[in-house]
């Protein structure tokens, strides 16, 4: 009967109930978005760093990947040392450099990654084929837009520029073999992947045996930290960074986001609490006479309070369900806006849906709302019957 009464009471004022549900939904959506934001970048960065299973990254001593123009010298020797270590399963060497795509008198500067397609973890192929042949090139959308090229086109790429002669040097004809999405680069950065040997050859000189970075896969059961230390000792001209450490560093730097998200999430909980509390209080104030009569005919205080709390709970649950859908849609929209921020890796998401965190947040919202209804409910159920009936009769 309590459910019947609660439902009938809510339906008695459909507009008010609808607005309350909408209010709770907005609050719930905001809470969900804050939860997604608090964990999103962290989860996204972690996923990005552990993608393809590269647990250790080797960079020039004292630098972060592509932080500077520095490179690891005697790359072949370093690679050989790494392959000799029992904990190493796979190695992906990567060389970063600027290439100029020459078309007539014009040239477009692009960022090129020299790598081995069979072990690479830097791009996802969207269309065409990997850059297996020495003259192959996989480009991203920004590259294709900047150069006006399409998959299948032949281009002239130059690795150098002679300022005196005003001419591009170290040229090579290359074919756009495929289109890719470069995970660690910004979406608006024109980039291309070419075979490592090709790029080393084009750069020539000392750079023919240099790389910017080694990405290392470990064997299952390997002590990553011990291997990292071993690598640093064996190759002193490089710094070895475990992905776990990198993730930790990123997480520390994202603490501001988490704090902001926590504050805003708390605000939305408070808003939800106040909304339900206000609605229940108003509803109860209108019905003190009814409640006094219910007590007079023998309905107990706890049952009256439960009925009122059920009303608050129904609004919260309905609002939370609607808020879930609203929050996901809003997050998708906001994510799209934030991802277009210049310089951010294309694979980074700001809002990542974590089902467990979302459900915990909603459970908290619903519990908060239930508590919000409890006090006005109990207060109304505790009014003196005779006095209340007399007051109602007079009014």
């Amino acid at each position, binding site marked *: *009967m309590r459910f019947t009464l609660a439902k009938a009471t809510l*339906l008695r004022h459909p507009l008010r109930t609808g607005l309350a549900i909408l209010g709770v939904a907005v609050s719930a959506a905001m809470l969900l978005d804050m939860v997604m934001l608090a964990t999103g970048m962290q989860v996204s960065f972690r996923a990005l760093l552990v993608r393809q299973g590269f647990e250790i990254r080797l960079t020039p001593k004292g630098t972060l990947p592509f932080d500077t123009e520095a490179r690891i010298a005697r790359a072949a020797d370093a690679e050989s040392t790494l392959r000799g270590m029992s904990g190493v399963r796979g190695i992906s060497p990567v060389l970063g450099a600027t290439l100029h795509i020459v078309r007539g008198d014009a040239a477009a500067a692009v960022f090129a990654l020299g790598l081995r397609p069979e072990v690479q973890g830097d791009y996802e192929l969207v269309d065409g084929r990997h850059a297996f042949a020495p003259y192959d090139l996989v480009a991203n959308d920004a590259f294709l837009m900047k150069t006006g090229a399409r998959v299948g086109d032949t281009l002239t790429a130059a690795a150098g520029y002679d300022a005196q002669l005003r001419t591009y040097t170290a040229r090579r004809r290359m074919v756009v073999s495929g289109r890719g999405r470069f995970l660690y680069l910004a979406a608006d950065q024109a980039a291309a992947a070419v075979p490592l040997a090709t790029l080393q050859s084009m750069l020539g000189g000392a750079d023919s045996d240099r790389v910017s970075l080694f990405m290392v896969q470990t064997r299952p059961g390997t002590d990553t930290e011990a291997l990292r230390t071993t690598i640093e000792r064996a190759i002193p001209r490089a710094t070895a960074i475990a992905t776990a450490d990198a993730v930790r560093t990123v997480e520390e730097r994202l603490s501001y986001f988490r704090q902001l998200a926590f504050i805003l999430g708390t605000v939305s909980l408070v808003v939800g609490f106040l909304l339900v509390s206000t609605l229940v209080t108003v509803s109860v104030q209108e019905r003190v006479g009814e409640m006094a009569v219910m007590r007079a*005919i023998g*309905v*107990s*205080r706890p049952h009256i309070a439960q009925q009122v709390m059920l009303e608050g709970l129904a609004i919260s649950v309905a609002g939370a369900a609607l808020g879930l859908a609203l929050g996901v849609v809003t997050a998708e929209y906001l994510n799209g806006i934030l991802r277009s921020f210049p310089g951010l890796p294309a694979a980074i998401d700001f809002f990542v849906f974590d089902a467990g965190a979302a459900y915990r947040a909603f459970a908290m919202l619903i519990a908060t709302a239930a508590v919000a209804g409890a006090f006005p409910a109990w207060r109304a159920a505790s009014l003196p019957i005779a006095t209340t*009936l007399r007051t109602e009769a007079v009014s």
Partner: protein
Amino acid sequence: MSDHQAPLLRTVNVSRDYPLAGEIVHAVRGVSLDIRDGEYCAIVGPSGCGKSSLLNLLGAIDRPSRGAVELRGRDVSGMSDRQATDFRLRNIGFVFQRFYLMPMLSASENVELPMAEAGVGKRERRARAASLLSYVGLGVRTRHRPSQLSGGEQQRVAIARALANRPALLLADEPTGELDAHTGREMIALFGRLNADGTTLVVVTHDEALAQAAHRVVHMVDGRIVSDESNGFPTPPGGSGA
């Protein structure tokens, strides 16, 4: 007095005082009253004489400042709120001047409300609600909401609700106060039928016709009983409820 002649309801020197604007109002002063099973008693008196306050004490929805109220030998005035609530649920039926039906429930659901609280199963309470509404002449209006019923019909629903848990005692506070004369007469006839079927009734009223229909009329003035007269009806020794 033997058990079957013991009063159903007894008040022993009950008083009720209220603080009001810095003063104490003595609404009920030292009232001692016995109501027997099957009796039909009207309490009359001028406005403010304490009739409704006395009724509230009889129905355990208020506590006396002094004295005791006993129903079937149990002192209800000393009960906790939970005990008193449960006691009212199973032993006392209330009919109010303003009906006080739940506006969002149908007639049947209003009658079912006390039964649901008493733990009666859905099927049984639905059947009993239908039976009670038929008894009060509303068998075809079970699904109507109070807003779809006339004043008299609403009061009939309220009476059916009051009878839901087969109470030992039915208390009515100005049951014809909001009704027109014709409907009021119908209500008086219904009360008469209820009592004839064995329901013990205590009615507070300004309505002379209703007071005349009762077996016994208790006059109150200024919180005290000033007279307690039989209307010439024989007082039954006991009876069964509706």
